Structure formats: C-alpha cells, structure tokens
C-alpha cells in the first residue's frame, strides 16, 4: 500500500511541476520546444570564487572569435550560460539582456552569452530576439568543452543556467548555477556588478 501511495504522490508532484515558470514572447510564435520540468542542477562546479578563471576562445555568431582574456585589465565579464536554443526559459532570458547595454556600460562590464548549440542554430534563434548587442558564443565543438571546464555541463550535454562574473584581473567574483527551470533575476547580477565598482 505504501508503494501505491508513494506512486500517486509522485504523480501529483511531477504533474504539478508541469505548471511553468516562464513567460513566452509572441516573438517566438509556436516555435519553442517544451522541455518540461528538468532536474534543477546536474553538474559539479570545477571553479570557485576567488580563483583565476580558465581562459577560452569561442566563435560568435557574428563570425568573430572571442577570447576571455582579451578583456583582462579592460572590462569585467559577465558570462551567461544558458542550456539550449529554442527552449522556454532560455528564450525568456537573453531578450531582456538586449536592452541592458547602458547598464553594463555603466558598470564597465561586458556580457558573453554561451550555449552548446551550433552557430546556425544560435543565429536563427537569436534573430527572433531583436538586435543583441553582446557576443553570442557557440560552445558546440568540442562539445561543451568550455561549459565542462567551468563545471556547468549537464549530463545530457546541455549547459546549466549559470551566471559567472569575472573581474578585470581575471578573478572569478560570482558564480550562480541557477535552477535550470527558472530565470535568474536581474538584480542578482547588478548587485554583484555594483560590488566591483571603484
């Protein structure tokens, strides 16, 4: 009987989890793949706050190659890892960052958006978001190598929904591996950037 009870309770919990925690813009029409509720986090960090960040170079959808260390001594860097293109919460995250260039400029910071999708997929997806001012980088091949270096590559090959802030000296100052099913609130990023002022 306990097995029956546990099964039914599990069923209720799983189905109640199907109630979403994201909004979807009409900009994406019906083209978003519904992932359902996922395990909140599914990786083990390989970096810590206070360490020098591992360096990397990735291709952007603009065609340029972007290297983390090119910002050393010049800008703070906010890395936004998102799990996958054309999925609900990810499609409800970067479009907000599209209107924040002034805010990042005020904090002497740049934003790098990274997913493990390939360039053509990222190109098509981000075209639906309007004009993005920040580099959108592909960590497709070797698959998820940069995400894995930071310890935010999930067991299914997608990335975590993570924010990593690196200061001008290349030191990691903030790591937030967010619940993949929820978008991190903007104020958590801005509060950390405020701490880097001066």
């Amino acid at each position, binding site marked *: 009987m306990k097995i029956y009870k546990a099964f039914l309770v599990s*069923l209720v919990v799983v189905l109640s989890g199907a109630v979403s925690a994201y909004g979807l813009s009409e900009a994406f029409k019906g083209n978003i793949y519904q992932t359902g509720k996922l395990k909140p986090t599914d990786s083990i960090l390989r970096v810590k706050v206070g360490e020098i960040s591992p360096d990397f170079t990735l291709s952007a959808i603009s065609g340029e190659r972007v290297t983390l260390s090119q910002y050393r001594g010049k800008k703070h860097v906010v890395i936004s890892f998102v799990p996958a293109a054309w999925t609900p919460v990810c499609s*409800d995250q970067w479009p907000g960052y599209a209107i924040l260039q002034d805010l990042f400029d005020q904090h002497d910071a740049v934003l790098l958006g990274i997913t493990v999708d390939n360039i053509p997929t990222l190109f098509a997806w981000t075209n*639906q978001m309007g004009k993005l001012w920040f580099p959108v980088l592909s960590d497709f091949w070797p698959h998820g190598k940069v995400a894995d270096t930071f310890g935010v590559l999930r067991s299914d090959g997608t990335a975590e929904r993570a924010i990593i802030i690196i200061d001008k000296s290349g030191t990691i100052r903030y790591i937030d591996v967010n619940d993949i099913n929820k978008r991190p609130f903007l104020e958590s990023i801005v509060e950390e950037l405020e701490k880097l002022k001066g």
Partner: protein
Amino acid sequence: MRRFVQYAVVAVVVISSLYASAAQPPTSGDVMPALKLVVPAEREHRAYLGLPSGDFFEVGQVKTDVVILEIMSMYCPFCQKEAPNLNDLYRLIEGTPKLKGRIKLIGIGAGNSPYELKVFREKYQVPFPLTPDRDFQTHLSLGEVRTPYFIGVRIEKGAARVFYSKLGGFEDAGAFLEEILRLSGLK
C-alpha cells in the same frame, strides 16, 4: 486495492484542480478573474489608479470605467517593441478631456521583479503603472498567455467584466483606442 482506488481518486482530484487552475485566458463577456495585483510603489501611480492603501488590489478596485491590462515582460522582444505604442495610447487618453480618468492602463510584468520593471520603465519612459508578477501567479491565472497580451475590462459598480482579450500588439494607438471605445460601450 480499495485503498489504492481511494488514493487514485484523491490524486485525480488534485491533478484536475491543478490543471483547472492553469486557466484559459478570459474571453469577452467573462467576469474578470480575481487577481491579487501588487500596488505600485510610486505615489503618482497609486493616485492614477485611485487605490486605497494596502499592498494588493484587484482590477475592479481601480477608479475608472475601463482598464486595459497588458501582460508583458522586460524579457519579451515584442513588449519592448510595443512600449512606444503603449506610451502613445496613454498620452492619447490623458490628452483627451472626455477620456481622461475613464480609461486606465496597467502593465503586468509576468515573472518580472520590481527591479526588472523599473529597468523597463526607465528604458522606455513608461508613464503608467507596471505591477510585478514575480512568481508568475497572475500569468498562470490568465492562462499563461504569450506576451504581449491585452485584456480590456469594463468596471461598473465594482464589477469587472472582460470585453477584449487578444494576443499581440497594435501598431496604431488611435485605431486601438477606437476599438476599445466601441467594444467597451464608452462610445
């Protein structure tokens, strides 16, 4: 087995209620669902809505004849694109003596924090109230609509009834206002 059936019935009822709560968007003629909206922090916006003191309000409490709700988000590209049109609509209403005070606009930020709405407001110079729906509860009550989504509500004797419910923005504030006036019965 009898016990299992009892548990199964309970599970079905609970699941059904959960899905019933994941409502459909309101349609024209419906009574507006009871929404617990956050009272705006800005004094001028509380005055604009004519709200009594308190932390939350319902649409039917707004001192006006018609409320236009926009379900929006700082994270929605079309809402960003639509923002200037909403500002035009607000100015058109406020600049028409016969309409000023009779139609009020409210943006509901689906999944947005007060800070995120502040950023949106400053970016687009939004003159009307934006209320946060941080945990998507209002969005859920309104059928998890895509954004932007507009709901027109007629308020008479404290009762709020939907007369307009539509996905997507409008390109011309004047034409949209004409439609609102016609459908609401204000004209």
